[in-house]
């Protein structure tokens, strides 16, 4: 009984010591070693110079905020403000590069998406089971007919929306009519997505034919008068 109590005490002491050490460790890790505002500002400037992406720049900005906080806590507001006055122009300059970084990252993402998308399409096309030429042409013709029909439906929805917009102006913008125009916009978007899906399906069939037969599929272009209807966003 006595032994059990002793071992329990040792366990509690050990656990407490572990927690204390852990907390101390965390505190030490997050502590910033301040030197002088000039030297710390120079350190931040060097890091800002090395930042080549928006994410890296954010890390530097966070660091600046931590240093400023540390100066405020250790030496008061005046020194913190002085540190800030040294660092802010440097970070402003780095911030000007942010737009360029964002553009570079968007371009890279576009290239990655194109790379993955093209390989995914080719995978799909190679795995597709194609029938004879007549069957493939019939599939394409069916898709073309569906595109023509859906484009006509979309054109009708666009016309309805335009008419409704005029009616709304005449009626003095009642909420019920504004909701209706929102519904029409959603319907137009849904129709555009359906058309895009069918076009994509046709493009995969054509790609599959090219890859599996090593030749271009010759398709007679359908009457596409309705297809040249403007997209909703162009209106």
């Amino acid at each position, binding site marked *: 009984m006595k032994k059990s109590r002793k071992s329990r005490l040792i366990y509690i002491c050990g656990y407490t010591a572990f927690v204390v050490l852990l907390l101390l460790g965390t505190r030490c890790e997050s502590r910033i070693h301040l030197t002088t505002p000039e030297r710390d500002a120079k350190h931040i400037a060097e890091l800002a110079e090395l930042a080549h992406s928006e994410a890296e720049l954010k890390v530097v900005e966070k660091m600046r905020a931590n240093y400023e906080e540390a100066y405020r806590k250790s030496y008061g507001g005046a020194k913190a403000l002085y540190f800030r006055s040294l660092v802010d122009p440097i970070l402003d300059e780095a911030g000007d590069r942010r737009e360029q970084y964002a553009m570079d990252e968007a*371009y890279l993402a576009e290239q990655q998406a*194109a*790379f993955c998308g*093209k*390989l995914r399409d080719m995978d799909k096309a*190679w795995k597709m089971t194609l029938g004879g030429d007549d069957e493939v042409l019939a599939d394409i013709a069916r898709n073309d007919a569906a595109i023509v029909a859906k484009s006509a439906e979309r054109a009708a929805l666009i016309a309805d929306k335009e008419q409704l917009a005029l009616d709304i102006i005449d009626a003095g913008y009642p909420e019920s009519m504004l909701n209706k125009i929102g519904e029409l916009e959603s319907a137009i978007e849904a129709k555009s997505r359906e058309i895009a899906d069918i076009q994509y399906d046709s493009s995969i069939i054509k790609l599959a034919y090219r890859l599996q037969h090593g030749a271009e599929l010759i398709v007679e272009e359908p009457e596409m008068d309705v297809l040249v209807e403007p997209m909703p966003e162009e209106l």
Partner: protein
Amino acid sequence: MKKLMMMVVATAMFGACCNGDAGVVINEQDHENIAYNKSYELSERVVNAKSYEEYKVAADELRAYEEAFRTQIGGDSYLIFLEESNAILNNI
């Protein structure tokens, strides 16, 4: 006998773990050249494949190089690799 079996299984598992990391390693001294050459070579193989198996091998290798450039090199060489590959893949 049981011990021997355990040792064989452990050795096999260790071997499997070690081989798991084996992949494409890009030479850091010459990554720009490799980006140009490999993207051209592999993308050409992908678009000119005569069978699904041939395509699969080339596409897997192309993907492995893409991952290697993304994770090991990044920056301009990775972008070169993507741009060059896309230029060829989009021709099909």
